[in-house]
């Protein structure tokens, strides 16, 4: 057996067995790497439905986002100055990017850069998704001085001033919450009058 193998003349093919094996090895490793690349691509699907893409359109009514009356239209009369609620556009409540915080502020308190044209009777709305890492913001009401109330994200304590266009007053959030236009309709419910005036969700 051994002799037989020795007899097989390697020079005939011009390629030694060692070289041939090495070539096969390199080729198969390259091939395998190619398929790994494809597999990794399959394993990291692209954007489909996920992510923070808002679908609010002007004319959508505002409904409560949570609580026992979730899904019901928000009545302007139910909110006094200093109140805030989380709201969704009616019929589009399954998209978290649509969540807004509706706040009622004393109209005199609005300061730049709030877009006053997007407010109505003291109602102002901002995206409720923190621009830091995407937690939902909360309303911190100051009963002693209503104008000192503010919006806070409990995750890393970013603070936004809704009277000043949700400017970042503290914490790690990089940019203000995006404002969105609202108005009170004649029947006392609220509707959106615009899209968001800035980026929504974490700025990554």
């Amino acid at each position, binding site marked *: 057996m051994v002799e037989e193998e020795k007899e097989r003349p390697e020079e005939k093919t011009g390629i030694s067995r060692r070289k041939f094996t090495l070539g096969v090895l390199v080729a198969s490793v390259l091939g395998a790497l190619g398929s790994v690349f494809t597999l*990794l691509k399959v394993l990291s699907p692209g954007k489909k439905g*996920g992510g923070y893409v808002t679908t609010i359109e002007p004319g959508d009514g505002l409904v409560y986002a949570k609580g026992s009356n979730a899904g019901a239209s928000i009545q302007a009369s139910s909110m006094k100055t200093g109140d805030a609620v989380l709201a*969704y556009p009616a019929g589009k409540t399954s998209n978290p990017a649509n969540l807004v915080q509706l706040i009622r502020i004393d109209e005199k308190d609005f300061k730049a850069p709030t877009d006053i044209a997007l407010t109505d009777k003291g109602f102002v709305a901002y995206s409720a998704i923190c621009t830091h*890492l995407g937690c*939902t913001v909360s309303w911190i009401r100051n009963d002693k001085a209503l104008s000192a109330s503010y919006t806070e994200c*409990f*995750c*890393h304590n970013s603070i936004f001033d809704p009277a000043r266009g949700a400017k970042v007053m503290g914490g*790690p959030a990089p940019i203000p919450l995006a404002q969105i236009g609202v108005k009170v309709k004649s029947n006392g419910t609220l509707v959106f009058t615009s899209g968001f005036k800035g980026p929504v969700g*974490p700025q990554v």
Partner: protein
Amino acid sequence: MIFKWFNERLEIDKFRAKFLSKTFPTHPTFLLGEMAFFSFVTLVVTGIFLGLLYEPSTKMVALFGAMVPASYASVVKIDLLPMGMIIRRIHHWSAMLMIAAVLAHLTRIYFTSAYRRPREINWFVGLGLWGITMLAAFTGYLLPYSQFSVTATSIAYFISKSVPWVGDWTSRLLFAGEFPSDATVPRFFFMHVMLVPVALLGLISLHMLILVKQKHTEPPSNRWLKESEGGRKLIGIPVWPEQTVVSMSFYLFLLFVVVLIATYIPLNPVETYGPPSPGTPVMRPDWYFLPIYGFLKLIPGDLSFSVPGGKITPETIGGVIFPGFLALVLALIPFLDRAKQDQHYMANPLRRPFMTSFGMAGIVFICMDAVSGYIDVLHIAPAKMAVYVVFATLAAWGVSFGLLRSYNRKRGSDVKT
């Protein structure tokens, strides 16, 4: 009789002579690694029970009249089973114990310089084990799909996505697309119950093989014993039966403590947190992620740099660069503190002022970052807290270095470490 039957086939005698009689040096701190391993055993056993009942899906199902994700519903149902809640709590408490044990074990290795030649490889394996243990806890945390776990995972998603160049792709690989989506829970489930435990098992085996090959460092007292006798053999107790008995009693004791804690102290009450809903409660991660969480609070929101092809944001700095840097420092330690000869004995930390004070500074730094997670309840401004963190770290370094130096001056340097 039975032993003979097996012995004739498997040659247990030989195995015993070769492996079971190996000497195992003793020191209380050597139990820290075992503690990590035993927690893992408990996690596997309780995890199998949970895995058989858990449903990895975010499909909405009815539970007591409300529509909730199926994963959340299945965990609530586990809690309602006889023994269900206690098993879940044992699982979660063991996870905490495992991480605590890994950290304590790592600290022990550091302060006694057991990472030195020839044990550098096992130091790296150990760091890998730590990383994968954190991954285990992280992937497990999402599974109940409560308001808390979803918020926590969402934060991690945006952190990983914020990394320039690779973040977008790696975050989609890890979370199976953008989070939240229906694909994330199945992927995390498979990672949590399959990939991660198998990786842990593999690395633990490697860790142990290397340990058996290289032998354990010995308590310094063994050196005096041996120098008087002139031998260079390990001093300790044999693996079988002594060490086995010690280990088993230790495990039973640990199990007792964990079950006791799990019985009386609730953990992650998903029923109270509720299924995902709009609105984020005041929340903090489990303690082992607190340093990262606290560090994120300290970074000002406008601290970002543009780099070609992307931007380095505060989230990247706090969530990726900061822990990555700590891991890098740990990984470099065997290269920074090298020894010319093999290290056979535990070093005395009091005799190594530089390394020990460096370690103290590191521990204080990490703990202060964890405290920063509470600046909202402590009413400290982030900038002020950042100053405290830096000050405390430098103080810990300076003071411990000064103390150790003067201690060593007084004692002279008759002992080499």
